[in-house]
């Protein structure tokens, strides 16, 4: 199997790698870089536990091949904290008790982050739509929505 050379930005750092074409992005991130915050739930794009940001948009990393990210920018949950300081979404998930078993949490936070990038002041309905691709089997959606609402600030550029 011929390997594919790729170069991409991973959580702010330029990375070069050679990948087997059959490797999914989720496995590549977890196995090669130890970024295990990105979870695999269903593996078919239904649960959203594997959500990452690709060029500014939330996507399912279980349905992307590693070789497809050449030249792109990837942000995972590990890239959200800044110099050891949690992102306000992460702080508010803790504060509002929006974490139960925790498996959906990274995907939820990344989907919320992607929403706030595009829409710094979303209404509750828009928050619900933004996390429509993320399942929480503990069903703690109310606290999750409230944590995202708590994270709304008008000026997101300073983040």
């Amino acid at each position, binding site marked *: *199997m*011929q390997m*594919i050379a790729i170069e991409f930005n991973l959580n702010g750092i330029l990375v070069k790698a050679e990948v*087997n*074409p*059959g*490797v*999914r992005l989720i496995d590549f991130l977890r196995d090669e870089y130890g970024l295990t915050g990105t979870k695999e739930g269903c*593996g*078919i*794009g*239904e649960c*959203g536990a594997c*959500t990452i940001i*690709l060029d500014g*948009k*939330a*996507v*399912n990393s279980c*349905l*992307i*091949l590693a*070789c*497809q990210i050449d030249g792109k920018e990837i942000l995972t949950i590990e890239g959200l904290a800044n110099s050891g300081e949690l992102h306000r979404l992460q702080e508010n998930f803790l504060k509002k008790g929006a974490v139960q078993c925790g498996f959906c949490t990274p995907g939820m936070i990344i*989907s919320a982050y*992607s929403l706030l990038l595009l829409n710094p002041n979303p209404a509750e309905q828009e928050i619900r*739509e*933004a996390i*429509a*691709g*993320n399942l929480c089997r503990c069903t703690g959606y109310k606290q999750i929505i409230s944590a995202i609402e708590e994270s709304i600030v008008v000026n997101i550029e300073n983040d």
Partner: protein
Amino acid sequence: MREFNFTNPSTLDEASKILKTSDSSSALLAGGTDLLSLIKHEIIDPENLVNIKNLNGFDKIVYRKGEGLKLGALVRISDIAEHQIIKDKFTVLSDAASVIASPQLRNMGTIGGNLCQRPRCWYYREEFDCIRKGGDICYAYLGKNKYHCIVGGGPCYIVHPSDTAVALTALDAKVTIYSNGDYKSIPIQEFFILPEVNYLKENVLEPGEIVTEIFIPEPKADVKSKYIKFMERNAWDFAVVSVASVMNLSNGKISSGKLAWGGVAPVPWQEEQLNQKMSGLSIDDNSVEEFSKSLFENSEPLEHNEYKLILAKNLTKRIIKEIAAD
């Protein structure tokens, strides 16, 4: 996932030639959201993926007043859902795009891929050697067929899963296909094919042919349009039944209109005599009720899906009234 080669052709022609010469051992990759699921579930087993996502010039939305709207095949579903001109002038299409799957999948999936996605029939997707996978019978016909077609079926009873295809059918869109070094443009109604024509595929594409663009002609002045999708849950689901309508109204009557349905047939479903019947239809309860009764006269519901006929009639009444009230 299984092993395969990955090629990044630099031109459309190169991609087309690889796909043509290697036939079924190669698969075209764009957004990949359906393709990678099909590979993972071992429904297809390509040796080679031909990535067209990086080809230039196929990801543009271009609107020319008086002419119409062109969507490159690689335009993302989320870009269609959020595009202001599409929201204003082709509302039925942005409506349909905005209720597809989840935000993550809309950010990755392309319009070309949405039209070419494979059916969701559970016998097709799971380990059944069904007729669409080269087997002998359609398991849905006498099996669990709650989500299957009520019209146009046989010998396979899938429904076409695309939401945008239904909206584009109501909009009389055309599909441009790259074929043997040339481009051809066909009405979307001719792009999709019934199982009685070929039960192994859902559209006319031959190996090496690639959808490059969707064209929607400029709508009439003052046109109104809408898409209603009935799902079993309110997020991330395929349509049980959906309806798209484009219409012009004057003095409490429909002066002209089109309807198309999803979830009822193996292709986006349209009936020309119903479109003709819409002209002159009064928007009052009795007339709309009477009109809805004439839907799908040739329908043959299966054991578990007769409810779809009632649902389609009710959604049709609703869409006409809602468009009139907008």
